[in-house]
């Protein structure tokens, strides 16, 4: 498994992208933004369609570009209309998928393989350049998150309180959305449009089961992201299955394991529930 170059590339990309998604996921779930990353991911289909339609060989750029466009549209509609956030997301999700399908219908054949690999994730699609991009993205985003952990935590707790504490809430929110959008867009190659959000949501949810504070949740989420990601790649190789599905499945297995641990430890500490009923 480790002698083949494409597997080493896939493992390296997973080693960078999975913990990154899991780290951002702690704040995404805390801020009820899961559906936000789902919408950006589905917007990527239009990015893929535009890229194929225009005959581009490198689709990461249109995927990131359209992802950012969808993210900006969500923020603009939130700030300038009375619509509820979930309505806005559903609107853009339907809009971008329909646009993507429409554009694909204009293309004359030969694109199904590419679309399939973007929809479900493909370890064979990861190239050297993707590994480098993942590595740089990991370094930049992870370092930025850890350097601004106070600010991110405070905003997740209460935006107005963060403002009074001197945080430029608007700027941090925009930067967080930018980081999330680019991370999701880059991760799509490995995880696929359909399941990329699983790596943003499941590791922090699993970590929550076995954590007593935020520090533990961050550490466990990173660990679960790495183990789930690498395990998923190995399963994908073994069963010749799309790696988006195998990574999501291994993350869900870890979630179930932490759930069992939680139920077991809670039973033993019945008098000290983690949360009130």
């Amino acid at each position, binding site marked *: 498994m480790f002698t083949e170059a494409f597997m080493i590339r896939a493992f390296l990309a997973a080693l960078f992208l999975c913990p990154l998604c899991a780290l951002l996921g*702690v704040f995404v*779930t*805390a*801020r*009820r933004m899961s559906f936000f990353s789902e919408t950006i991911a589905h917007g990527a289909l239009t990015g893929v369609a535009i890229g194929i339609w225009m005959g581009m060989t490198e689709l990461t750029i249109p995927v990131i570009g359209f992802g950012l466009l969808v993210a900006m549209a969500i923020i603009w509609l939130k700030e300038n209309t009375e619509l509820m956030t979930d309505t806005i997301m559903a609107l853009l999700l339907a809009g971008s998928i329909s646009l993507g399908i429409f554009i694909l219908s204009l293309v004359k054949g030969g694109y199904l393989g590419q679309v399939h690999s973007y929809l479900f994730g493909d370890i064979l699609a990861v190239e050297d350049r993707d590994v480098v991009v993942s590595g740089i993205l990991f370094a930049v985003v992870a370092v930025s998150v*850890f*350097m601004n*952990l*106070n*600010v991110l*935590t*405070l905003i*997740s*707790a*209460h935006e*107005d*309180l963060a*403002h*009074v*504490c*001197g945080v430029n809430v608007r700027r941090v929110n925009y930067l967080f959305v930018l980081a999330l959008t680019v991370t999701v867009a880059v991760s799509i190659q490995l995880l696929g449009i359909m399941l990329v959000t699983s790596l943003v949501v499941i590791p*922090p*949810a699993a970590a*929550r089961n076995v*954590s*007593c*504070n*935020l*520090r*533990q*949740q*961050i550490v466990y989420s990173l660990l679960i992201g790495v183990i789930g990601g690498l395990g998923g790649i190995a399963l994908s190789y073994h069963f010749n299955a799309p790696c988006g599905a195998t990574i999501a499945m291994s993350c869900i297995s870890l979630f179930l394991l932490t759930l069992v641990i939680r139920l077991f430890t809670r039973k033993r500490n019945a008098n000290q529930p*983690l*949360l*009130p009923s």
Partner: protein
Amino acid sequence: MTCECHSHNPDPGPVPAIEVSGLKVSFGGQPVLKGVNMKVPKGSVVALIGPNGSGKTTLLRCLLGLQEPAQGQVKIFGESNLQRVMPRIGYVPQKLALERSFILSVREFLSLRLSQSRNWFWHSRKWSDDALRSTMAEIGVEPLLDRPIAALSGGQLQRVLIAFSLLKAPDLLLLDEPTAGVDSPGEDTFYDLITKVHKHHGMTVVLVSHDLSMVYRHASWVYALNGTICCEGSPEEVMNAESLKQAYGIHVSPYQHHHHVH
């Protein structure tokens, strides 16, 4: 609304803690604040009361620089650039709308206020214990330190939020509906704590509330808001003002709740 009970405000001194002049805010063409004027003297404990929809929250947001007024000015400690005075303000919000999946502990939350430059993630327990010790003792949050914030009761959360705001020794403490969701004995304990904190630190305290009864025991001066400051004075004067009864409707009877006046 006519002013019927404007008493002589204690001299706010050369530079009042809060000075609001001609403040107007509208939402969708609907005026919410219609020209608010107030001067809060330094070191006082004042209450800002008003029924729902009277503009309390909007005024509070203006004081915190979260809402741009259409007209008028807010000065805090003589400074109209509110961003500059933010470090001197302690803000106690109503609640933290934390997701249950976000397991921020009290210790981690308080550590956020200890120093923006240092990152709470790398703090040791001992470091945070040392840094938080005096505030913990004063507010009595020590037993709560390792509990998740989302698991606290209303009263416990209020204590933690006060401890958070006191860590930077503010000159002005703004409390938004501080006892909403706190039971009656908890309410008394809470206001006793505010009184103690005020005595100890001598900062200016502004309590924003729709609860008329609480002003009796804890505020030295009351502003009643209903689009404008319709009435201000000592708690006794404000409670008996006809305009206040109009603002709240005819069923106002604060005496039912408390029998003694400080």
